[in-house]
């Protein structure tokens, strides 16, 4: 009834459409993480780890040489800074004691200790259009999907896929990432949204709020993922358009993702809870 050519054409159109539908479902996150995916990660990640560790070792030798040259000069400066820091530390100790007294006074429980797992970055996303990275800790180390990942400088991202000894982390610079945040000085609220570059957007900050270049942006803790007060970055650009309800704010992340090697994953995260008094 139909020619071979016609059947082939229909089949080809069907295959193309089926593929586009599959891609569309995948784009909307409709395809769940399978065991086979975990297995693939577990098979490839050891090789990635070996190469990353080797290149890190070579870089370290190079860096140590240059570091020792400038160390003597830096030492003098650091001694001065240490003297100032010691004075600051004393002041902070006093404030901590005072804080403790006041907390008791208003019936607050002490925050539970955070359990953190240190992990090494072993690979980056092969696509320049997505910002994820692989770390060498997985569900065998107590990690699961959704846990916050931080570094000494600030927030790194969130665990999105976990295999036995490895996990994939979605960085805050990815377009799919968003973190509820505050301007530290003025407490103006907004959402830090990734842009696949070194800077992020600080969206939904109202025009009436004061946001200035150089302000620190910290996590608000309201998203129930990232601990409150952890640094996200600094404001580098603020634009207020007359017709807009919100300001256009750009934030430079505290963490330099190009040189990031170690991260911490918050395995158990609990904030201060208020005592209910009868």
């Amino acid at each position: 009834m139909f020619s071979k050519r016609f059947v082939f054409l229909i089949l080809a159109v069907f295959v193309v459409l089926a593929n586009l539908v599959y891609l569309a479902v995948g784009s909307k996150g409709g395809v769940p993480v399978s065991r086979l995916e975990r297995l693939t990660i577990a098979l490839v990640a050891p090789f990635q780890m070996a190469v990353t560790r080797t290149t890190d070792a070579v870089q370290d030798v190079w860096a140590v040489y240059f570091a020792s040259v400038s160390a003597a000069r830096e030492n003098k400066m650091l001694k001065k800074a240490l003297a100032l820091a010691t004075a600051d530390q004393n002041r902070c100790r006093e404030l901590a004691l005072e804080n403790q007294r006041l907390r008791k006074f208003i019936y607050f429980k002490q925050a539970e200790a955070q359990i953190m797992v240190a992990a090494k970055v072993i690979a980056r996303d092969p696509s320049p259009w997505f910002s994820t990275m692989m770390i060498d800790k997985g569900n065998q180390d107590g990690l699961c999907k959704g846990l916050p990942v931080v570094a000494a400088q600030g927030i790194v991202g969130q665990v999105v896929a976990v295999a036995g000894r490895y996990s994939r982390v979605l960085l805050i610079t990815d377009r799919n990432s968003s973190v509820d945040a505050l301007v530290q000085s003025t407490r103006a609220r907004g959402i830090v949204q990734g842009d696949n570059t070194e800077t992020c957007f600080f969206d939904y900050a109202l025009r009436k709020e004061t946001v200035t270049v150089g302000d620190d942006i910290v996590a608000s803790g309201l998203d129930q993922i990232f601990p409150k007060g952890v640094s996200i970055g600094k404001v580098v650009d603020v634009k207020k358009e007359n017709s807009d309800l919100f300001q256009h704010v750009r934030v430079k992340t505290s963490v330099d993702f190009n040189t990031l090697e170690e991260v911490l994953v918050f395995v158990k995260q609990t904030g201060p809870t208020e005592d209910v008094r009868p």
Partner: protein
Amino acid sequence: MNALFYLFLSLFLVIVQTTLVPEIAFLNCCFDLLIVNVLYVSLFTSHGIFILYVVALGWTMDCLSGVPSGFYISSYVWIYLFVFMLRHVIHAGNFIFIPVISAGAVAMEHGFLIFTLLVKQDGWFFSTADIVFMGKQIVVGFFMIPLLLVVVNKCKKGWDKKIQRVTGRKMGIRG
């Protein structure tokens, strides 16, 4: 033995793509290196079984990346099929054919990327910088992929010779 060669090649490219390329600043315009692998099998092999190899490559990359599920599988399979079919029309050794299909393959992957991101984000959000970046990758692909294909071809020939020597020795054949 051929399977071993392709396993090593793909593992090498996956690791370079995920560990070394993101670390080196001047490689930030580098295209997806696995395209070299896909183009190599579509240009220089005739067995249809290689489509499974291409699917496996795509699956691995999908697992290691934050891309929407199925993105790499779709890109690689369509690149493979497209080049495989074109090969029957144009001679694979044609000096202009390989650079053009190299650039075309990078552009095709970008096409899939634009489609998946449009579906994901519900609308156009690519900036001029993004488009320029894509263009740069296509240009780099035009010049670099043919060179890498030559390198891979040389490696394959070297591998075949070594295997022939080893198997010849085992069978008592003196060359």
